[in-house]
């Protein structure tokens, strides 16, 4: 980014000095290249838009496939307690997150159905007793303390409010990892401009703060006069 900026600055500087020079020159020279200049400007403008909106996101994120294909919708139809059937709370109030192999084995000790993914899952993981290295879309940086209990149990929020309708998905999207930060793309959101339509489109700190402010939760900070930092950080 800095390189581009520098170039832009140089360009602006150069342009200024150019302007001073040309003031002493004859007019017809301008007439000759005027159209081209605008054309090149537009060319540069469009090229950078393409770079910024199309190429940059592709370069910024690396894509990885999940180790095993997974159908949330299918499972959701089989279980009794919706999301909490697999993504449950432990007795100490902590949240179990992505299920461990031991939970899957409850049903998947033998191959169920005829899908390729199922066969792979059983042979690669169940039979070898290896944990599946799931890639977690919503993993927050290590400095973040997020209490599922506070949001789900105390505030009564639905999973979908932050995670979206992932429970209805039939396949897992590729996991996109930011090459600079190392975090999942879902934190910034799919939209490279950082725009969101739904509450679950982004998981940035601003989104947490916004909701906390609206609902007047833990607004005890002296420094910021709003949310206290220790509420979500440790």
């Amino acid at each position, binding site marked *: 980014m800095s390189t581009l900026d520098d170039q832009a600055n140089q360009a602006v500087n150069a342009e200024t000095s150019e302007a001073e020079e040309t003031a002493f020159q004859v007019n017809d020279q301008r007439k000759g290249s005027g159209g081209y200049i605008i054309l090149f400007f537009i060319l540069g403008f469009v090229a950078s838009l393409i770079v910024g909106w199309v190429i940059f996101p592709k370069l910024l994120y690396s894509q990885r496939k999940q180790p095993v294909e997974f159908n949330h919708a299918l499972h959701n139809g089989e279980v009794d307690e919706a999301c909490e059937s697999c993504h449950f709370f432990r007795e*100490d109030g902590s949240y179990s997150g992505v299920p461990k192999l031991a939970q899957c084995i409850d049903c998947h000790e033998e191959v169920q159905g005829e899908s390729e993914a199922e066969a792979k899952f059983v042979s690669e993981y169940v039979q070898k007793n290896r944990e599946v290295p799931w890639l977690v879309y919503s993993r927050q940086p290590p400095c973040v303390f997020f209490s*599922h209990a506070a949001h789900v*149990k105390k505030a009564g929020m639905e999973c979908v409010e932050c995670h979206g309708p992932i429970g209805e998905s039939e396949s897992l999207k590729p996991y996109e990892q930011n090459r600079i930060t190392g975090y999942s793309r879902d934190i910034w959101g799919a939209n490279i401009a950082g725009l969101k339509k739904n509450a679950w489109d982004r998981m940035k700190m601003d989104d947490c703060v916004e909701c906390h402010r609206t609902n007047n939760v833990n*607004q005890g900070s002296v*420094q910021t006069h709003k949310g206290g930092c220790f509420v979500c950080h440790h």
Partner: protein
Amino acid sequence: MQFGSGGYLPPAHSTFGGCGLPHCQIAEKQKTYDNGSKKLPDPSIRLNGVNWPAKIEDDGARSPIENRQFKGVLMEKGKAKKNKKFGMVIDLDKCTGCGSCMVACMAENNVSFREDETDKLLSVTWMRVYKLTNGKPFPDSEICYLPRPCMHCEADHGHSPCVSVCPATATDYDMNTGIVSQIYTRCFGCRYCMAACPYQVRVFNWYDPVWPDGMEKMLSPNVSVRMRGVVEKCSFCFHRYQLAKDKAYYEGRQDLEEDEYQTACTQACPASAITFGNLNDPDHAITQIVRPDHQLGGRSKNPRAFRLLERLGANPKVYYLSNREWVRHSGDNYRPDEVKL
């Protein structure tokens, strides 16, 4: 009354500025030290004939800024909810200086260690036990140990010395708990807070933390591992509060019992010298021991109790108990003519 060479506390005259807001009296309070009185100055005497703090929290009267900013937290489901104010009282007559609190803290909070930890200015320690001596020659010499966590100063409405100076909003005073937080990822290491802290509780990470040979397996995920270049300090094991609340929420409770949230040092102390709890809850042991006088900036009504650098007005939430007068007097910097021991 001298702090042993194991460490020292800076003189009360080390200054820190106020936050500049009209309600902030910290800068002005500096003037109260040298009133020339031969008597031990009463910490309650404040400037301009106004008792400090002007408003107290418990009686329902709140300063304008609190009314403006924090009204929301006070109300929950139509019921008044009192803010918590976690504090600690340490009985120095029971403390044996064994160092359990220090290690309990290190193990709980992923504190790093290096090959040579004898330069105490570089040594990362949240809880540090100081050795006080009465300065008398043999055989009248006495020693006393003084464990020093972060004081979590409330100062004037949360304008703790460190919070007031942090340019990065990395440290903050939380009115809900009375805990001074430190967010490592926010800190950029300017160390203003270290200069401002009258108690030397803050330490700077001069080095990258290294855990040898697989020892990083003992790191706890509940506390961020700090990196080189940031300041860290005691958090009153805030993550334990978070985890205890999680459990309570899971069990459908809104509030915690006293014993559900205790710091690691409190729990480990073999002498049970440390009592931790909510100073705003009259049922908590700490409130009954300390009997804080909210009219006088939280000063204790217990004659055995004192706070460090009481006259600074930082309103720390860590209290100490001792029967020995010289110990109580080593908590502050008195001129020789003020105190005769």
